[in-house]
């Protein structure tokens, strides 16, 4: 079976600087895969190139078997891959509900912009059903629906960002730095939410994380990126045991090893 997302030899350059240097990654239907690595390793650049925000200098991006290298973000969304961007990004002046509705923009409204314009915010039919579905998955958003998204807490904004992505009915949800700047309890509930989403709804997950412990907890498999190159790949179990990964990402194995020797 062809993988849902197949990235082959991707190169991303900003002027002379090479951010991603020939990286290949593949994610199968229904999998939970993480992309870990330190700040500046090229994780987000890779994701942005996949999502069409940045044009790759070389390499291929295939989504569901179709070559979508360098296509516009809207086309990637329509192909079934949606990104939750880094840093809890919402449309701050717009209401939570409008934030969510705009998540369906790339998939629905664009084609029927005129009719969507005529009806009040497209609160009808399939889109309204989908909105109710997102509200039932995240009831907190329903309570906040009329509030400007910029006036909600950090965790709530991350929920808005995830809900907005779900409005596009993605088959693969790519989450960039889920945990960044959020408290441990919020991170835990979001992690559980993503797990349920993958388990019950069959949504494929691609987690881009600096927090390796979180990535290993949620995902079955991970790729390790350093300075734009792929340095390791394997199951979360293998990587968790790997000495290098432990020293760099899991807060030092030296202590544990020393304890073992004692």
């Amino acid at each position, binding site marked *: 079976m062809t993988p849902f997302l197949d990235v082959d030899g991707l190169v991303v350059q900003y002027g002379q600087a090479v951010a991603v240097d020939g990286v290949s990654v593949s994610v199968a239907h229904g999998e939970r895969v993480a992309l870990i690595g330190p700040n500046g390793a090229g994780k987000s650049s890779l994701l942005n190139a996949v999502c069409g925000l940045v044009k790759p200098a070389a390499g291929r991006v295939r989504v569901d078997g179709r070559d979508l290298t360098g296509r516009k973000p809207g086309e990637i*969304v*329509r192909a079934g891959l949606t990104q939750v961007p880094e840093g809890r990004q919402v*449309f*701050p002046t717009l209401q939570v509900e*409008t934030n969510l509705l*705009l998540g369906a923009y790339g998939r629905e*409204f*664009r084609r029927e912009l005129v009719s*969507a314009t005529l009806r*009040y915010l497209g609160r009808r039919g399939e889109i309204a059903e989908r909105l109710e579905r997102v509200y039932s998955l995240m009831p907190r958003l329903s309570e906040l629906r009329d509030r400007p998204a910029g006036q909600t807490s950090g965790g709530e904004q991350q929920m808005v960002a995830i809900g907005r992505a779900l409005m596009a009915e993605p088959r693969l949800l790519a989450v960039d730095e889920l945990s960044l700047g959020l408290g441990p309890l919020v991170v835990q509930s979001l992690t559980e939410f993503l797990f349920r989403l993958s388990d019950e709804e069959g949504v494929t997950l691609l987690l881009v994380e600096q927090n390796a412990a979180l990535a290993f907890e949620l995902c079955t498999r991970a790729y390790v990126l350093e300075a734009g190159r792929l340095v390791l790949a394997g199951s979360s179990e293998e990587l968790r045991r790997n000495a290098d990964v432990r020293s760099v990402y899991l807060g030092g194995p030296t202590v544990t090893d020393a304890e073992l020797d004692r």
Partner: protein
Amino acid sequence: MTELLQLVVIGLSTGSAFALVGIGLVLVFRTTGIVNIAQGAFAVLGGLFMVALVDDLPGVVAGLVVVLIVGLVGSIVGFVAVGFRRRTTSVASLIITLGFALLISALSLLAFGDETHTYAAISAHAWELGGVLVQPQHVAVAGVTLASSVLLALGLQRTIAGQALVASGDSRRVAELVGIDPRAVAAIAFAVAAALAALGWVLMTPVDPVRWDSELRIVLNGFAAAAFGGLVSIRLAYLGGLTLGVAEQLVVGYGDAIPGIGDQARQYELAAALVIMLVLIGWRSRHEVHE
């Protein structure tokens, strides 16, 4: 009293035209973050094209054609100003619109010469209300501006297309991620802004003749109106425009009573009005801080 009312009536109509320019600036800034210096040039184009077409076509048709043409010019300016590289800064975009403003002025000078242009008002008659003369042209400007401002505000807030435009101004990156194309946003916002400015001077030219260099005065007034709403509020830009128009007329009307200024009052019209506007903006922002 009659004189005061007369000045207020005229002020409200010129102020409406400034408001039209101002809400165009607000629309563009709110959706793209670009300060559109060419907005005054769009108004001048509206006036000059109208003068050129009004003899050959029925007035309403000529007006619509002019508004559409200038809207098209606006969308081209927007398309270019938003930049071909992803990292075009808002300052670079501003400079691009300044370039277009100068280009349009230069072309207007070549095409229409160094004279002031005007055309006959929709009606030579004026209504007299308690000694105050109200020209149909003034009513037309004021009515069209009020209707456009309300429609634009509703369109932005109440339609998904409008909210998509605002979303792009809120966060261009996220807007792109959900499939909103920033180039299309810029083209649409500039087109609507240019059409509004053109509409303003299609209607104003009979009572406020235009020349190739009227652009500066119009864009300054439009900015003052837009600045009243912090460049993001259509409602306040509308009120700002009206306030500015009235203030200017009062300076013109009563300026000759001020010793040392006398007959030159007209020259100080814009300067005095801008000072009044600055004071009002300062007062409003203080007020907001205290809220």
